[in-house]
């Protein structure tokens, strides 16, 4: 969902550059408190993994492909603040090293793919992951829905940006239909990839899944009990 330079006009690109910078800066201040010996390397791995999976475009329609955005996956594993940072690093590397995604459009892409997806994902996690120890099926289902929701709203953000600063050579209505239609399908793919990945991590190291750590019981419980089978 990388945006090329020139598609969105300069004022809107700059405005969303500010939004992205503010989002990343705020995420950095919030993420600091979450960082420990486990989450520091996890942040590195999550970013590297999102980068890798973003290379794997899958077909959704004839002539149309999709790829993981990654904000939901990152949020489920390391929380929204680290997720914003991780995905932003991915986008930065892609733009600078691979010419993937415009440079003046980077603020738009960071806003959509890093900030919006992660915040939406965090909100959905709050709504969906209520139990202390979800069943494997529950983890799968929640991850899928969180990912799908994040993709839909992240893609909708582009429609908003287009409304504000696009060339309007194609009608806004058409852009909205196509963007949301394509990304509904892409979201299913993202949902599956996210669910499989989160379920795998949850099965081996549930303590490394942020979404499962939000309901830790009172300190009286020993750590071994919490690492469930």
């Amino acid at each position, binding site marked *: *969902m990388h945006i*090329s*330079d020139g*598609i969105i006009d300069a004022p809107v690109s700059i405005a969303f550059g500010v939004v992205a910078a503010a989002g990343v800066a705020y995420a*950095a201040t919030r*993420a*600091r*408190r979450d*960082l*420990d*010996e*486990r989450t*520091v390397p*996890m*942040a*590195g791995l999550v*970013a590297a*993994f*999102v*980068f*890798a*999976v973003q*290379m794997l*475009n*899958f*077909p*959704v329609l004839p*002539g*149309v*492909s*999709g790829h993981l955005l990654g904000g939901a996956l990152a949020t489920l594993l390391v929380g929204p603040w*680290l997720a914003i*940072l*991780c995905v932003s690093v*991915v986008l930065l*590397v*892609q733009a*600078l*090293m*691979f*010419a*993937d995604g415009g440079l003046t459009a980077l603020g738009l892409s960071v806003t959509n793919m890093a900030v919006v997806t992660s915040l939406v994902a965090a909100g959905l996690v709050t709504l969906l992951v209520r139990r202390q120890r979800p069943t494997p099926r529950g983890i799968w289902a929640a991850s899928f829905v969180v990912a799908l929701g994040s993709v839909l709203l992240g*893609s909708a953000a582009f429609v908003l940006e287009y409304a504000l600063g*696009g060339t309007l*050579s*194609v009608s806004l209505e058409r*852009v909205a239909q*196509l963007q949301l239609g*394509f990304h509904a399908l892409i979201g299913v793919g993202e949902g599956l990839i996210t669910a499989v990945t989160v379920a795998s991590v949850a099965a*081996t*190291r549930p303590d490394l899944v942020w979404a499962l*750590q939000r309901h830790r019981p*009172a*300190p*009286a*419980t*020993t*750590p*071994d009990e919490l690492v*469930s089978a």
Partner: protein
Amino acid sequence: MRRISLRRFLLGGLLVALLLAGGLSAFASSAPDGLDSVTRQGCTFGAGGAITSGRCIAQQARAHGLASSPFAGYATDGVDGPASTALSGMAGVLVTLGLAWGLALLLRRRERGSGSGERHGSGADAPDGSGAGAPGPDGLVDAGR
């Protein structure tokens, strides 16, 4: 329950990322992604990918400023075939890993320097994750997450 050590987990995860970027990427679809497809609606394209007719959002797109970088387009300069994508993918994985990890380390150091004297984190992870420490620090740390 004996669980996989953090080091093994991280190495395993990195290996998967490298295999995906280095191996599976050659099989990825080369069709334009969802957003690119939206921007291409309304135009027809010629063999070289250039717009031949119609009106579409993509007509406004400008060439990338760094299109001459050695890894531009996920190909490696001087390397042909699937190895080109594989090398660029693996390079990207490692660069991203390093940058993100480095950023996280930097943020953590600044937090520790300015924060309270209390140690964050549950202490060094025992290699086999036995977690034999007192439950107190774990509860405090995770309540903050």
